[in-house]
């Protein structure tokens, strides 16, 4: 039967009667308070209760239920925390942060002593040898390994085919050590006694220092690819009399940040002070060689070079002048060469003080930066542009960086020769 309005209306009054007899109108609004429920005011949100710990597994060594050890249970636990530095610490502010850490004034370009030696070392067939070294590393090597996937920022969705070729580490090794071999022969042609005094060490190990900075312990574990050592110390770029007059500039501040922001904070560490190559006759570092097997910017790579140079010199200063806390009686210096795929970077560091906390001191350390000496342009393929851009292209050779490298390798070579002649004469007597 169809529900019509008449029927509905006729029953409405009956339903009303029934509803009036009920008391459900009152119940939901004025429900009696239950005894089990407590009224809670919303001042805090209820925190989730921690889950009950599950039962231990049947096997004690089950790797599925592995729980890592706490800090106190691991080895080398100390109560005082320390900040560790590594090769993989990437400074977020770059050279500015490193200059504040090492309390060093920044100069751009080469120091004067090195600038005078730029065109003094001759290499026959210079451009041909340099081109050979470049092509050996980029093209002629027969290594075939899976290279990482490539992404071009101009066309992000383009999918390149997977390629087999020479890995970056091998390219840098070949390029750098070909260059250094050419440089050393050129220096030896002019000063033949350097072949006796100098050595080249690959992957020296065990270089570490530690010191206090603003009431916090820092420990450095420095990693270097190769080093050229000599029998006598490097002569400083700025002699001792002119140190105070030249350190009149001010160091910039990075106020809310401390320079140890990128260091790794731990309670488990070992403090060590050692130089890795102290058991041979030529034990003073001349140049450090770093290979940039990463995708950092040039600024970050130079910051790493500065900090490694500082670590190496600190370890040496603690051994030659034990118990020192402020200015050194004789300044120490070191050179660093940063090799990346197409460019060379140079840093020259001079240590005058060990007191890194006082920024308003009379004496500061010095740093010279020379970045991005591009040797050649390498243009990777971009096939969506046309046939001309299908293959890699190596163009526009520039030899300025190589000449600067000759000057750095040849610095203080004449001093070593005179010292050896003096040494040989003593033996004859």
């Amino acid at each position: 039967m169809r529900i019509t309005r008449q029927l509905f209306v006729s029953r409405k009054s009956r339903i009303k009667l029934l509803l009036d007899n009920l008391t459900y109108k009152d119940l939901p609004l004025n429900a009696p308070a239950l005894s089990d429920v407590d009224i809670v005011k919303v001042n805090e949100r209820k925190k989730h209760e921690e889950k009950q710990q599950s039962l231990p597994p049947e096997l004690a060594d089950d790797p599925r239920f592995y729980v890592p050890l706490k800090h106190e249970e691991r080895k080398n636990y100390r109560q005082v925390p320390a900040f560790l530095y590594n090769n993989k610490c990437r400074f977020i502010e770059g050279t500015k942060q490193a200059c504040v850490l090492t309390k060093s004034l920044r100069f751009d370009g080469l120091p004067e002593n090195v600038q005078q030696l730029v065109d003094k070392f001759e290499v026959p067939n210079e451009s041909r040898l340099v081109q050979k070294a470049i092509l050996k590393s980029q093209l002629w090597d027969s290594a075939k390994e899976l290279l990482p996937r490539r992404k071009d920022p101009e066309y992000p969705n383009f999918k390149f085919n997977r390629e087999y070729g020479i890995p970056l580490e091998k390219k840098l090794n070949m390029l750098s050590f070909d260059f250094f071999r050419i440089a050393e022969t050129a220096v030896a042609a002019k000063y033949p006694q350097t072949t006796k005094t100098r050595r080249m060490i690959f992957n020296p190990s065990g270089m570490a220092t530690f010191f206090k900075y603003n009431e916090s312990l820092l420990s450095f574990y420095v990693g270097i690819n190769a080093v050229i050592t000599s029998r006598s110390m490097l002569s400083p770029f700025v002699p001792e009399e002119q140190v105070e007059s030249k350190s009149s500039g001010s160091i910039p501040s990075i106020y809310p940040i401390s320079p140890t922001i990128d260091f790794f904070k731990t309670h488990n560490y070992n403090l060590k002070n050692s130089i890795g190559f102290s058991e041979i006759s030529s034990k003073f570092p001349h140049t450090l060689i770093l290979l940039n097997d990463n995708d950092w910017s040039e600024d970050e790579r130079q910051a790493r070079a500065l900090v490694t140079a500082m670590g190496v010199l600190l370890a040496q200063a603690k051994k030659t002048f034990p118990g020192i806390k402020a200015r050194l009686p004789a300044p120490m210096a070191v050179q660093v060469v940063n090799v990346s795929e197409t460019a060379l970077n140079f840093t020259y560091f001079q240590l005058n003080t060990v007191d890194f906390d006082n920024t308003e001191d009379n004496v500061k350390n010095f740093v010279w930066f020379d970045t991005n000496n591009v040797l050649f342009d390498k243009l990777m393929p971009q096939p969506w542009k046309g046939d001309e851009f299908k293959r890699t292209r190596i163009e526009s050779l520039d030899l300025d960086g190589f000449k600067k490298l000759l000057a750095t390798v040849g610095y203080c070579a004449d001093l070593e020769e005179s010292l050896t002649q003096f040494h040989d004469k003593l033996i004859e007597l």
Partner: protein
Amino acid sequence: MAASMFKQTFCFLKNAATSSFANVFCSSERSFTLYTYRARRRFKTVRRRYNYVPMGRPETPPDGKYTTEPLRFIRSGGRDLNGKVVNAKIGGGPKVSWFMRDSNYPEVGERDEKVLRVHPDPVRTAHLALVGSGNHKRYIIAHQNVKEGDVITTSCQIPPIPVRAVEGNAHPLGALPIGTIVHNIEKIPGEGGRICKAGGSSALILRTLGDKVVLRLPSKHEMALDPKCMATVGQVSNSGHDAIPWKGVGEKMSSGYRPRTGWRHRKTGYHGRKIKPKRTFIVKPTPPKYETFKLSGV
């Protein structure tokens, strides 16, 4: 027909009348239903705007501590917890990494922080800003006009005169003047930011009402909050992300959507796998208690 309808209503009301309503709506009896999955959800692919957010879950670090390193984000693929396809229109898309974002406010008096990096977030609509102070780095929500090198302050004090609002700074609501635009607001003081975290959103402080501060939310609702709750001044970044439309099917497919089956393969109740919801068991309310009277032998 009317009688049957009348009967149904009468029966319900009869049961309701005799049994107390407390029994029917008591939570202790309904709690049995919560363990089972009752509702039959209708999955609709919402027509998301451009710069969408991928569907999936993040992988938290094993320590549980805060890190600035990128972590893994696992796409769902339209799969449920049981591993079965629940939505066939989701699938594919590039691999994406996830950053932990800190929306809590520190409980110190005053702190200065410096903006180090700004970059878009692949998992959220708002941009990320790397911020550092002392020896600690963290990611926060980036506001509209943020640049590298800015200095941001957070303070927990409520002075008698309201503070001049500078974009990016964080203050409690009682310290800000009326008419300021605000985001990342706390509901309960000390809890962490909850409101207005998406790209382009912002709230407005309208007036004070006794002990509380009244805000207008982006849904045009008004909310009264404790004046001790913290908030940051400004509008969230990436405001125009709603307006950019999709370019075509290829862009959608490469981002993580799959096509809908057309009219030739239209599914009716006759075709395909029989997907039905799981049956639940409902605990019936207790039967009504009848009062018993015993007649005495008088």
